């Protein structure tokens, strides 16, 4: 059999000793191992991107159509009825709110269901399970990038000039993704045991939209303290911050800080919870 390849002799890299024993309680998070599996992370994200619009007529255009139609709906229902848009052209206002919101909500939904959707991998191969929800979130970033081009076009059309604050744009994109990961870790791990999460996710995202200043500006919340309370919703700070990076107002305040703190608190908790539940995934899923 000439087709049978000759396999190279085994070279033993050092430090490959693994010790397996029952794990109880809270475990440390192995970021080094996660880094080791970065190629898998990337290839899983790439898989989802490739598969996403297979066998659709409009393909990637869907990434544009969804936020665009939603924006038109908001303009027709809210802006035409005198809702404040912070003095910015209504289409730009809504679209710039929808973009980070959709990045978050799409990431959250896919991440929340990601373990369930990849159960054939979980029961057959070992890799840090954290790879799966993170890959799901990277996938949502592609849609975001496509619709971002439309936002630039809208801003040019309505002559809304960008300001120097645009340099901080990556920070808020990252924050939106971290917020989605933070909540997604909790929900995806819960989803393994309780399939109720699948249904909860749908309306959680709907309710959350109204608790976030997407349709309305945070300035509509009058008192300073109430705005800080609004900041407990991590997406409040992210959406407002995103708008600020795009056209320079309104400047971030204590609300943003509260949101960032919430994101990191949820994320750290989520990481440890996920790590704790991880070992039972293959048995429960």
């Amino acid at each position: 059999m000439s087709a049978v390849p000759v396999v190279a002799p085994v070279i033993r890299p050092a430090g490959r000793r693994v010790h397996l024993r029952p794990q109880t309680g809270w475990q440390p998070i192995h970021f080094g191992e996660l880094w080791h599996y970065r190629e898998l992370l990337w290839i899983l994200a790439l898989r989802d991107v490739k598969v996403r619009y297979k066998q659709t007529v409009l393909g990637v255009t869907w990434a544009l159509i969804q936020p665009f139609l939603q924006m038109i709906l908001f303009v027709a229902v809210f802006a035409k009825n005198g809702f404040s848009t912070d003095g910015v052209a209504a289409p730009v206002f809504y679209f710039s709110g929808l973009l980070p919101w959709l990045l978050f909500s799409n990431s959250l939904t896919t991440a929340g269901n990601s373990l369930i959707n990849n159960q054939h991998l979980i029961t057959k191969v070992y890799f840090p399970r954290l790879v799966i929800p993170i890959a799901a979130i990277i996938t949502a970033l592609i849609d975001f990038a496509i619709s971002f081009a439309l936002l630039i076009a809208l801003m040019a059309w309505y002559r809304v000039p960008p300001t120097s604050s645009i340099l901080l744009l990556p920070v808020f994109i990252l924050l939106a993704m971290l917020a989605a990961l933070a909540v997604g870790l909790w929900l995806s791990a819960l989803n393994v045991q309780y399939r109720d999460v699948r249904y909860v996710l749908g309306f959680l995202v709907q309710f959350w939209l109204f608790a976030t200043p997407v349709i309305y500006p945070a300035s509509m919340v009058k008192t300073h303290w109430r705005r800080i309370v609004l900041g407990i919703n991590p997406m409040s700070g992210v959406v407002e911050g995103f708008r600020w990076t795009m056209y320079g107002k309104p400047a971030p305040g204590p609300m943003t800080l509260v949101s960032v703190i919430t994101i990191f608190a949820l994320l750290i908790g989520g990481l440890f919870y996920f790590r704790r539940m991880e070992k039972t995934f293959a048995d429960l899923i």
Partner: protein
Amino acid sequence: MNDCAIEVGGLSKLYRIGGEQKLYPTLRESVAGAITSRFRRNGNGAKSNAREFWALKDVNFQVQRGEVVGIIGRNGAGKSTLLKILSRITDPTEGEIEIDGRVGSLLEVGTGFHPELTGRENVFLNGAILGMKRREIAGKFDEIVAFAETEKFLDTPVKFYSSGMYTRLAFAVAAHLEPEILIVDEVLAVGDASFQKKCLGKMNDVSKQGRTVLFVSHNMTALRSLCTRAVWLENGKVMENGHTTDVVGSYMRKNTIANPESVWSEGSAPGDDRIRLRSVRLISRSNSTDQITVHTPLSIEFTYWNTMPGAVLNISALLYTSEEICVLVTVSDFRPRAVGLIRHILEIPGDFLNANSYFVNMLIVKDASVPILRQDNVLSFDVVEGEVTGNWYGATPGTVRPKLVWKSEAVDASEIDLATARAQSD
């Protein structure tokens, strides 16, 4: 022993099976369960609804570097659980495992293959899932494709592949995994005969390169030829651990000839006041009593009591494979039988049945037309592979494997031409 690749000590794995056999607990049930269990505990003692099940219990063994170890056992013996723990997919409940070396596990062929992606994309995806680096896969890409023989369809989504092509491509990726320790579940049970042969050949190569291999299989022939040592698991415990030939031998003694005879006491015997069964026995007509191979000549002895003077009785034996495929029906002679104990002996020649599990149903008919006794599954037995000739370790297809007469000779071409011409002109 410093050169241990795998060291398993006191390994146990407990599964809790919900009493209500619900696949997924919902939140409501869990909350309700927490409340009721608290009540129960406060009340008349805790009584858990969940059943506990030890898939593995206190398993100990070691695998030296470069050893090829087979794991055998019946379904549910804990083999898959063991592999899952060694592959780090699930956690042990008790015990410790020390693994020294990069582990590659193949619990399935084509894990993570996505139907919408092309063959090329799936090679990279599957490789990454199995733990290969992108560079590594790219370097071996041509070899993988050549092994799979799917060059032409590389850019076709695998959903359009035939199942054979799909399996070949999936196995090709796996075959190029180069871990120091390879853990393989029954992946070779897929594909057609020639593909199985290729897989086993590849396994043979791997084992000869000095890699440590842990191999679960039901194919005893393959195990005997590939593995130096075998571990027999039963009900989550190690029954025997030693030379493959010894362990496989005792495993087969325990597990084959599942039900070589049925003897009934007078009260419980099937039948009525006309006919009453006494016994059905399988007799091996070979010197070695160990196991029935494809070469062993067999006899089946049926005995029953007859109370009808001069009744014309005959007996039929129906032989089935474990997949309930009827291999044959054979009918005895029709003749008036005396009152008393009647015995029929059916002879099955050696080199006739294939390696498989078989069971026997029987039927007694009066006057060649009236069935008066039908008894199913009176016997069951396993026929195993005999000595291997050549290097073919896979299963031979077919329900029977008779030795038929072949006439082979060198002939003169002109004679054949003449004969055909004559036949055509007739």
